[in-house]
């Protein structure tokens, strides 16, 4: 049994900070999970190797939407290299392979650690992260 509908997740789902359009971003990309129908458009502003701003729009399950919002919280203001590193940690955590110190490093995204017990939902949690990694990778 799982318990990942904690306050962090429901809060980011109901009151996302980064869910809005972003004018004059340097790149944007669609991420889709066809089987679930989760779809987001991720916008990033990357200047001199730093993610200076970001946003997303779209719809889907709470896990996909909250995870994208939390991801943006984490990577905005960080270098592309740091964002890639966090992506790696997140993937590790979602597959149940991260140690407590690594989960700490993921800050609020650590609230999604329990999703590793729900294989069918892993791709929901990864959607925003995967899309971000594809954009900066």
């Amino acid at each position, binding site marked *: 049994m799982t318990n990942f*509908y904690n306050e962090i997740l*429901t809060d980011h*789902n109901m009151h996302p900070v980064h869910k809005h359009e972003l004018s004059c971003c340097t790149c944007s990309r669609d991420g889709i999970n066809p089987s*679930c129908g989760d779809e987001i458009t991720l916008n990033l502003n990357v200047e001199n190797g730093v993610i200076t701003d970001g946003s997303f729009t779209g719809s889907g399950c709470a896990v996909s939407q909250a995870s994208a919002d939390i991801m943006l919280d984490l990577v905005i203001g960080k270098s592309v290299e740091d964002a890639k590193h966090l992506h790696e940690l997140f993937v590790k955590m979602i597959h149940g392979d991260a140690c407590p110190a690594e989960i700490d490093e993921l800050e609020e995204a650590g609230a999604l650690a329990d999703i590793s017990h729900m294989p069918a939902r892993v791709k929901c949690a990864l959607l925003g992260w995967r899309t971000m990694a594809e954009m900066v990778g």
Partner: protein
Amino acid sequence: MSEHDYKRDFPVFEKYPDIAYLDNSATTQKPQAVIDAVSRYYREENANPLRGLYELAVKATDAYENARIAVRDFIGAASEREIIFTRNASESLNLIAYSWGRANIRENDEILVTISEHHSNFLPWQILANEKRAKLKFLKCSETGEYTAEALKKALTPRTKLFAIAQISNVFGRVNPIKEFAEICRANGTLIVCDGAQSVPHIPVDVRELGVDFLAFSGHKMLAPMGIGVLYGREELLEEMPPFLYGGEMIEFVTLCGATFAELPHKFEAGTVNAGGAVGLHAAIDYINAIGFNEIERRENELTKLLVTEMQQVPHINIVGSHDPDEHHGIVTFTIDDVHPHDIAAIFDESGVCIRAGHHCAQPLHKYLGVQSTVRASVAFYNDENDVRRFMDCLKTIRRRMGYSD
């Protein structure tokens, strides 16, 4: 209502006494009687059926063919030659499309399917129509999932060769008037393919009474093992149809340049058959007959009524299809305002309630209804009020769990 605790017949509930299993439309649990029958077959009667020249193989053949006779009687077919064992309803429907379809559908012919068909009774016709440059047409339903004779008559043309429809939709749970539709089709020279995957397990089905040309269903949705399914076809039609798969046991005579094929039904059963599965299906039929459809329907209808009426009391719940519980036959598909079905399913899972979320292999219907995905609870006779209560208790908390105030 629970004079008899049927759950005691199902070992899975001994192992997991705390789950409320409400995903019976996806597959049912298996009673001990079925598990024992399959086990006995492999312990006492196993050999390669239909090929044997020794006693054990004769036993295997008898076990397999007796299962066919049980299916014949269960659905009221005229002859066991009309009963073809397949893997599941999907394979049965594909068999019709490949064999009958490729031999009979020509350019500009029309195939009519309902908008609510399961992908298994949709894609084989779509592919066939594309391949033959035939036209695929859709029969539309009302918001309550109802198909009318008037709409059917209007949709049929002299070119309509085939009409594909489920007796009970796996989303609406409504019983379609197949007998009436079959008469309309016959008058128009149109064959009717009935998908019985959700009806055969839950209501008495008699193919001659219904007047259908083909009926497809799966064993695993009616207490039998996975991997055994049935295609019923009228004998005259099956006789004329070319084989679907080629190989062992479906021939009469093979030479370097040709072959003649075995008689019905073996013509359509290439290769080694799933005798253990057929034996399990036979045991499932015996088990269902022992309880009787009167009792099965009474229990399932009572549970459905309880479910629908209680759900109607809860704000923000939208039931797909009719508001009348009698039109649901164990299947209640719904959405909750502002909560994604996958989140709903995960919260139910936390409470040990097994339900299904997604498009239920009916994407065209979801698009037609304007919803991305839905949640579905489906009951069987072995469920009880406690399962419904567990479901309702959890359902009422979901919006709050997701942060909404009501």
